[in-house]
């Protein structure tokens, strides 16, 4: 800041001289502008004003001359503005004004934008689109760079070496796929079922449903890649529901070939009730061990605005047993809600299934949510925490007291 200041001063100082030199001869060429004659001359003695020959309103002329040309073409265009077109124009102006607005917006998005119930909802939606666009642009740029690099290396490679020889034909990905599919097919016959309850559509917004399905796709993928996969059931999945539409959007043709069971039946119709356990963070019961004979149910729900007790209510209604992960017991919880994403749940359950090791399984809880693993009994740790807090508090109080004393003495001296 200071250096910039210095620079400025230097520039101003150095520029005065040439102005004065030019002052005499150019004076008559530039008509004095209105504001200049009003404000500047009154304040400063006009002999050494460096800006005197500066036409401060020149920009207006430029702008006005620029608009002449464009005015003619805009007239023909603007016949009638439908609501959509008007909204599009507003967006364009907001973008020009530097707000977070996407450059391109589709008809569908524009409609969603107009249907937003409030100004803040509109703003949020636009920001979301803007960030999505930015993300896409960056991704595309990276891919382009990568392709270029690859082409370069290929060119070099083709010059230098012959084809490498090895005993395996390079068909990694497809053969891996086949192996995975074999394992999942096995699990569909012999594997332990895992149920995703798809009955929360009413409790979610469209975006939340989209997020849910995204998480489901991730969970399915990690299940497929595991050593001993679950047999995944999508229960209560209605045809033409939002879930269904989103799933098809994500999987496209692969949806019909997916090695999972998707059904519109409820899990209580498929499995015996006493074997079902509903996993929910609100459950009063805490899971102790992973039971290989039980069927665990996960609610397919993303709740951005935390809705407590929705899945617990569902389990209560059906009279099912519930359980929560023993997060408190093993982790020193820091911040964030205790509900985890579906793919995190999947990772945790898969690890439990393979190893039964809680510590290993709970590695998949996001690191920001906990401070560390509990090694000592919880109550001892809590005692420590309390002690730390008490010390902190004590220090703060002392600081306050000091501050007060200082202020007080100041007051006294002022008097």
């Amino acid at each position: 800041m200071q250096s910039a200041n210095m620079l400025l001063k230097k520039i101003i100082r150095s520029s005065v001289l040439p102005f004065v030199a030019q002052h005499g001869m150019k004076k008559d060429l530039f008509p004095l502008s209105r504001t200049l004659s009003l404000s500047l001359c009154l304040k400063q003695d006009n002999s050494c004003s460096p800006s005197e020959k500066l036409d401060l309103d020149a920009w207006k002329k430029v702008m006005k001359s620029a608009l002449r040309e464009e005015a003619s073409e805009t007239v023909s265009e603007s016949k009638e503005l439908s609501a959509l077109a008007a909204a599009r124009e507003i967006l364009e102006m907001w973008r020009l004004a530097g707000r977070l607005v996407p450059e391109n917006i589709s008809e569908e998005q524009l409609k969603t934008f107009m249907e937003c119930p409030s100004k803040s909802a509109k703003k949020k939606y636009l920001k979301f689109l803007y960030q999505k666009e930015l993300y896409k642009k960056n991704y595309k740029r990276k891919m382009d760079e990568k392709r270029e690099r690859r082409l370069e290396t290929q060119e070099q490679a083709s010059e230098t070496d012959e084809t490498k020889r090895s005993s395996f034909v390079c068909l990694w990905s497809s053969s891996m796929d086949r192996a995975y599919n074999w394992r999942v097919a096995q699990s569909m016959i012999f594997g332990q079922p895992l149920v995703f309850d798809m009955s929360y559509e009413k409790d979610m917004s469209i975006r939340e449903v989209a997020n849910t399905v995204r998480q489901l796709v991730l969970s399915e993928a990690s299940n497929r890649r595991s050593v001993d996969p679950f047999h995944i059931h999508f229960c209560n999945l209605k045809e033409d529901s939002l879930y269904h539409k989103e799933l098809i959007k994500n999987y496209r043709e692969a949806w019909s070939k997916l090695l999972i069971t998707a059904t519109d039946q409820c899990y209580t119709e498929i499995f015996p009730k006493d074997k079902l356990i509903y996993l929910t963070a609100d459950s009063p019961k805490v899971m102790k061990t992973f039971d290989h004979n039980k069927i665990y149910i996960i609610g397919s729900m993303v709740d951005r605005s935390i809705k407590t007790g929705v899945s617990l209510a569902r389990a209560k209604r059906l009279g099912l047993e519930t359980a929560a992960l023993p997060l408190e017991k093993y982790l020193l919880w820091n911040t964030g809600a205790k509900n985890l994403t579906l793919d995190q749940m999947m990772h945790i359950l898969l690890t439990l299934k393979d190893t039964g090791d809680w510590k290993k399984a709970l590695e998949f809880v996001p690191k920001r949510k906990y401070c560390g693993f509990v090694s000592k009994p919880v109550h001892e740790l809590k005692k420590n925490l309390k002690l730390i807090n008490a010390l902190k508090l004590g220090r703060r109080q002392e600081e306050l007291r000091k501050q007060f004393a200082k202020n007080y003495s100041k007051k006294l001296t002022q008097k």
Partner: protein
Amino acid sequence: IQPPEKPLQAEEWNRLRESFRSPEIFEEVMFNSMVRCNSPIDVAKSLLTYVAKSNGDIAYNLLVKYLALCVQRGQTSEIHDVYDIMKARFRILESGAYNLIIRGLSNSDQWRMALTLLEELKKIMIPSRTNYESCIKAASRHQEMNLAFELYHEMLSKDLVPTLDVLQAFFDFSRGMKGAELQKELFGILLYLRENQIYPHKTFMQSIKLWFESIPGGNWRGHLTNIKDSGQCPVCNRQLEDSDLTEEEYNNLRERIIKDVIHGTDTFRKTSPQEFEAFQAFVENRLPFDIVIDGLNVSHIKPRKMQCENLFEAVSYLAKENVRLLVLGRKHMLINSSNWKREIMKEMQNKADFFFAENISEDDAFLLYATLQSGKHCKFVSRDFLRDHKACLSDSLTRHLFRKWQRGHQIASKKMVLSVFIQQPAFRYDCVVQTTGDTWHIPYKDTFEEKYSYQVPRKWLCIQQKL
């Protein structure tokens, strides 16, 4: 960066721009700092000229920023010019520019122009409440009260919430003016405060007082006072409205509590249908109660004491006066433990009725139901503000009713001193703006920031008309 103090030549701007870290955003950053430092307008103009000459055009965002500077420095003619240029250059303007222009013009002698701009803005979107605020203030500043009120009603019809500032402006600028119509409108504002349970702050209250006292031939006199616990005003000796709801309001509230709070989207979330039915039957058989106690809440009053002891103390204190008590709790209280001794629980059950909900059920919902079912005389004891239950109610009108009812029926036990159970009595009178025709009673806040929604002001302005 610091903006220069004097207008610069193109070369100088150029040099400055080059020395800046990222020249692409130099103009933007420079304008931002000009607005922040409130630079003279000529400096900004010289920068604009530089941009116009080097690019042949000026970007919209720069124009808006320049506009912000003009508004800040009150340069009306400049605002006009920029508006003309923008209008010719772009087919429509966005809300940011409109906000600035309306604000800028409404503070000048060309405030009528702001009104036409407001009309223009209405064609593309709903104006914000600050837009209306500027126009209303401008109109009332020029004594055009009819126009101001027209705008005010238009604003309300668009569900915009006026700031206290605007409302205060009405009182400030109508001082000493005559007219039955005007008086009616201003009374209307006071009733708006009443309906929305808004409390004016001290300076606003002063404006109201001064306006009343300035009405020609009105003979109004205002006094600041505190209302007695009995609900009597010490100045005019009138009794304030009591906090009872009307029969209709009461029934409405009760139905909404059952529908929104207890059942909500899913009855299983807070209780279960079986449990709720059992509770309903239990309450019907024993009606009416005088006081309903939130057992778990009361049992935590003194953390150093055993929980059942706390509860015991409260129950035996309240049981003295031959009142019918209901204590709500959860089943885990019945299991003998270090905090819940069976003998004490047994003894308490002789003094009051007990209902134990499931451990995972919400007992607060039952508390509300039992109290409302018992009738208007029934009170409840809890330190909980019940905010989450209020939030379950679906419309603001019912939420206001809930708050009003809560004020009149909740007994909060303060931290006890020497094991005496001190009651914070429920209010006997209702704390809202109220009138009897020849008197007005207006509660007010001491400072602007006081914001606890559960607290109600204890200070009042009493205005009476001497005929």
